[in-house]
């Protein structure tokens, strides 16, 4: 039988046991002397290293500066994906010939993992801003396009026809009827895109970048400083959660406003 919910107290107790157990195993493995502390630091070491990285620069910048340049790249790649994906999705939903033209190419390219664009990204745009942005774009683009397209296809044709009968141009029918009706689907797509884009960013920075959190982790790896690598993972995880939470808020606001 599906078990009933646990009482909050019991739940917290058990969660605490899980968390403490995990930290205890980790700490005792680190302190056991089987490996060096550089190789397997304690959780406390990682936190200390994290605070240290926040204050002192490592491989050219503090953690905050690295994060900033990561976020800048992410913003550009993600913004570009939205800027291209939303209009293209709407147009594809409206014009069958465009749909037929773009879809096969899109389906073929989609199967190339974003990370496999690394060589061309480096060759075409270099390792500064352009290269990583291409990889983020490749990760973030498909969900926006697919969701916009699917959402726009679900808009009842009656509304568009009614608008056109009342004299609305193609442009107005698309921007004032189709687009507003598609917004919830677009936002849902953007949320998936942001997640995939953030993941691709990490991959991009591991290989083609000279700043950013991924780069910091590579430098930590080269210095065999596990604590630095783990600090980077922590920063990436936290920022990823914040981005998702922000977009989730936007999504919820829009959905409640529309009574969905």
């Amino acid at each position, binding site marked *: *039988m*599906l*078990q*009933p*919910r*646990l009482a909050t107290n*019991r*739940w917290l107790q*058990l*969660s*605490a*046991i*899980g*968390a403490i*157990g*995990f930290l205890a195993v980790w700490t005792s493995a680190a302190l056991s002397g089987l490996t060096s502390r550089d*190789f397997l630091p304690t959780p406390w070491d990682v936190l200390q290293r994290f605070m240290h990285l926040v204050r002192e620069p490592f491989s050219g910048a503090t953690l905050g500066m690295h994060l900033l340049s990561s976020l800048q790249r992410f913003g550009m790649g993600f913004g570009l994906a939205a800027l291209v994906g939303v209009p293209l999705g709407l147009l594809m939903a409206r014009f069958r010939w465009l*749909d037929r033209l773009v*879809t*096969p190419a*899109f*389906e*073929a390219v989609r*199967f*190339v*993992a*974003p*990370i*496999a*664009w*690394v*060589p*061309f990204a*480096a*060759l*075409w745009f270099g390792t500064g801003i352009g290269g990583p942005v291409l990889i983020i774009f490749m990760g973030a683009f498909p969900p926006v396009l*697919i969701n916009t*397209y699917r959402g726009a296809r679900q808009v009842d044709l009656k509304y568009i026809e009614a608008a056109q009968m009342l004299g609305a141009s193609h442009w107005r029918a698309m921007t004032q009827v189709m687009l507003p009706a598609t917004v919830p689907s677009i936002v849902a797509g953007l949320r998936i895109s942001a997640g995939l884009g*953030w*993941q*691709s960013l*990490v*991959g991009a920075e*591991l*290989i083609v970048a000279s700043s950013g959190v*991924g780069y910091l*982790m*590579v430098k*930590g*790896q080269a210095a*065999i*400083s*596990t604590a630095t*690598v783990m600090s*980077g*993972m922590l920063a*990436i*995880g*936290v920022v*990823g959660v914040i981005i998702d939470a922000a977009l989730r808020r936007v999504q919820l606001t829009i959905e409640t406003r529309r009574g969905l």
Partner: protein
Amino acid sequence: MKVASGQPWWRALLTTALALAGALAAWQLLTATWGVISPARFPPPLEAYGALRQIVLDGYSNGRLHDHVLRSVVLVTMGFVVASAAGVALGLAMGASRVVEAVANPVFLLLRPIPPLAWIPLAIVWLGLGDAAKMMVIFMAAFVPSVINSYTGVRQIERPIFEAAAMLDARGVRYWREVLVPGALPSIFTGLRLSLQASWTTLVAAELVGAIAGLGTILNQAAQDIYPGMIVVGMASVALCGWIMTQGLGWIERRAMPWRVVH
């Protein structure tokens, strides 16, 4: 995105053939004939074909194409099977038991937001550039999605099914085999598909960062040699292998759930 149904198969085939021919012609014209795109940036069709011949017949970056493909595919399959077996088991247990859920939750909250690719540097520090590091990375990539989806799968089973199972006194192994697993199966497979994709991407990335053989090393070597033809061959191989594995998983999915019509 869906090709209009209802047209005869030969029309669909003809459209596809025409589209392919058109794409090939455009590729040839843009790169070689008119030179709009410099061959140093994107290879003309003949150069890509030459690169393909070279890697299939003579080899490139420590092996011929089938060596690289085999190595990557075997690694992903092994890592994926191990990780998803463990992940599905944990997910089902978390779905079935509130106690397991409560205990495992904190660790899971910590691991979940870390992107699979972020495990690569850690794997290299701990295990070096060999297969062990690749397995670790693939495991991390495949584990999380299979846990989450198995867990939600159990939670989505409808109440009357549990009530019927209780009434028929299904317990122990039978309860798992005939109620929990089949009920969660659609969601489990969603998780497996995500896991497979994540582990493939992550392996390619890990091989790009450092490896002796594998599809990622083709890309890495081609990037260093500035050999656009080989880059295209590498990317196409990554895409094709990923596609074939996804299709294979889809085939298993249809076999595993014959009662369900999959679109």
